């Protein structure tokens, strides 16, 4: 029932104008297998950036980056899998086909379209109310990258084919090691309680990120803190910097593999100080956070999933009555302002 505690920062129903209600979610993303994040295609190095190590420690280090677009796409896809299976994706007005991501033909009516937005397709455009941020590795990238030589072996089991020609498919490729921690902040703006459950469910249920492949990119997401307020939390870069300072001050050796428990403890102690910052009104306590995650799990459970998704889907029903009532709706919105 801890969702009650967030009530002042949740919308009672979808509203078209921003009202400053902000939910901040601190997420720890841990790789469970080899993972690949690149900004430029195949063969390019892993996505990393030189940034200041800590807030106090001003030395520059290279950190791995999981860009915001690399996070949100798989998480949306995860939610859409369930929408598709419960037939909650609508037919796009423009193409006469079922709502699909990135195809210039959003349905404009499904939960995903309402919450994560779509660019001008048919009738209009919807801004996303889920704001992601580039996530950073806590440790320097030099610790976290492995190199693999890929040699394509012929059916003979050797590097030479029957005619004795050497395999040319010899390549080295970089990957991010398993057990790498990324810290991240997700901001939800003016969402309803069920939209919050939906977005959190997508984060918790998504387990594959990065380059498209069935064998790599396993990742586990854990929610370390949830804030309700009228302003945004500090950036994820400042979060990893704060955690780096904290770990260094505790005398921890910053080398891979790094245990998750001390990392979580450090991250939680850093975010605990955020409640005093301007405009940030409250953080859920550990028990409240557990209760909220249990609430999300319950709503996504096999028994309740359909009820939950259909209830959320129905919440947009009045907004789907379009065109003929368009003018009247416009007036209502002005009154609401």
């Amino acid at each position, binding site marked *: 029932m801890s969702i009650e505690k967030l009530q002042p920062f949740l919308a009672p129903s979808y509203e078209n104008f921003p009202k400053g209600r902000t939910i901040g979610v601190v997420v720890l993303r841990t790789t469970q297998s080899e993972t690949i994040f690149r900004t430029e295609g195949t063969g390019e190095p892993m996505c990393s950036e030189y940034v200041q190590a800590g807030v106090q420690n001003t030395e520059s280090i290279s950190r791995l980056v999981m860009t915001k677009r690399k996070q949100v796409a798989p998480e949306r896809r995860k939610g859409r899998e369930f929408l598709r299976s419960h037939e909650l994706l609508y037919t796009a007005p423009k193409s006469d086909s079922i709502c699909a991501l990135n195809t210039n033909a959003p349905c404009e009516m499904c939960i995903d379209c309402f919450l994560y937005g779509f660019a001008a397709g048919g009738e209009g455009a919807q801004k996303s109310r889920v704001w992601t941020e580039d996530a950073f590795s806590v440790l320097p990238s030099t610790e976290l990258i492995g190199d693999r030589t890929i040699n394509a072996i012929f059916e003979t089991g050797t590097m030479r084919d029957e005619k004795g020609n050497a395999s040319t498919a010899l390549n080295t490729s970089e990957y991010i090691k398993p057990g790498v921690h990324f810290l991240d902040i997700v901001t939800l703006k003016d969402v309803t309680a069920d939209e919050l459950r939906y977005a959190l469910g997508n984060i918790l249920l998504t387990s594959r990120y990065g380059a498209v492949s069935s064998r790599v990119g396993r990742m586990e997401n854990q929610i370390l803190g949830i804030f309700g307020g009228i302003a945004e939390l500090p950036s994820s870069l400042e979060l990893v910097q704060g955690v780096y300072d904290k770990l260094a001050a505790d005398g921890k050796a910053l080398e891979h593999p790094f245990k998750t428990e001390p990392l979580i403890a450090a991250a939680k102690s850093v975010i605990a100080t955020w409640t005093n910052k301007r405009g940030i009104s409250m953080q859920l306590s550990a028990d409240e956070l557990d209760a909220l995650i249990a609430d999300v799990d319950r709503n996504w459970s096999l028994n309740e999933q359909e009820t939950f998704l259909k209830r959320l889907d129905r919440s947009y029903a009045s907004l789907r009555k379009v065109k003929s009532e*368009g003018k009247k709706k416009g007036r209502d919105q002005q009154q609401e302002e």
Partner: protein
Amino acid sequence: MPQLELLLAESDSKLPFQTARLVELWCAEPVFFASRELSDTYYTEGTIGNYALAYALGWARSPYRLTGQDTGRPRYLEDLTPLAEQCYILPAWHIEGNASFRFERFNALSDSYWYAMTNNRVATAREDLPLKRTGKKPNTFRPSNFPQTGRLRMIERGNRFQTLVFGDREVPEYIRVGKFTSKVRVDLLRKLTITPLPQGEYRCNAYLSAADIPSSLELLAFDLISMPPVSLLKNLRFRGAAWQVGDFILPANLKFCGGRNNE
């Protein structure tokens, strides 16, 4: 001399703002605006426009969902001109004079198991493939009117910009700007007083939005940064009334859209 004093006193009383604040914007993330398009590359200029900043600061609320006319038409006049007497912000300039950029490839993928890259489009209707092979152009294979692949030139993380905020509205600690709602930290550096300067010839050392300059101002020379929605001027020499704000000299009476209402 008494006459000049009278003039000064008069323009003083007309000052819409008593103070301004010099603020610094720190890019916690790469920032992208589609300022220019060259082939499949989308360029961000090394500045942040003041209309984007006004929305980002929460001075105007644009709706989450745009419908009908609003999708193809900006609402700057309705949203920003009513702010004229309350607040104003200049376009932000890079503190070292030149922003650094990075390039990134983008590639939109579909959520279907089968897809094909066609003319600037991700096709997902596998059943259309045989039709396409016969030379027909099924709907799902036609070019898209928005880019699904290409390169982005973005302002790199860590760049610092400065700008002046007029009026005394509270400024949030973090704002979101650009097409990917990138996080930017706002630090208040110092409070500055505004002193009106008499008619004369001046050189402006800040960035200005071309649409916000009073129509009576005589522009002598400037560099133009051409970008939507409003081109920016830098190194402006002008003749007219001016404001001295700390070390900055600006044309007097800057207002969003020059204060025009619904023309």
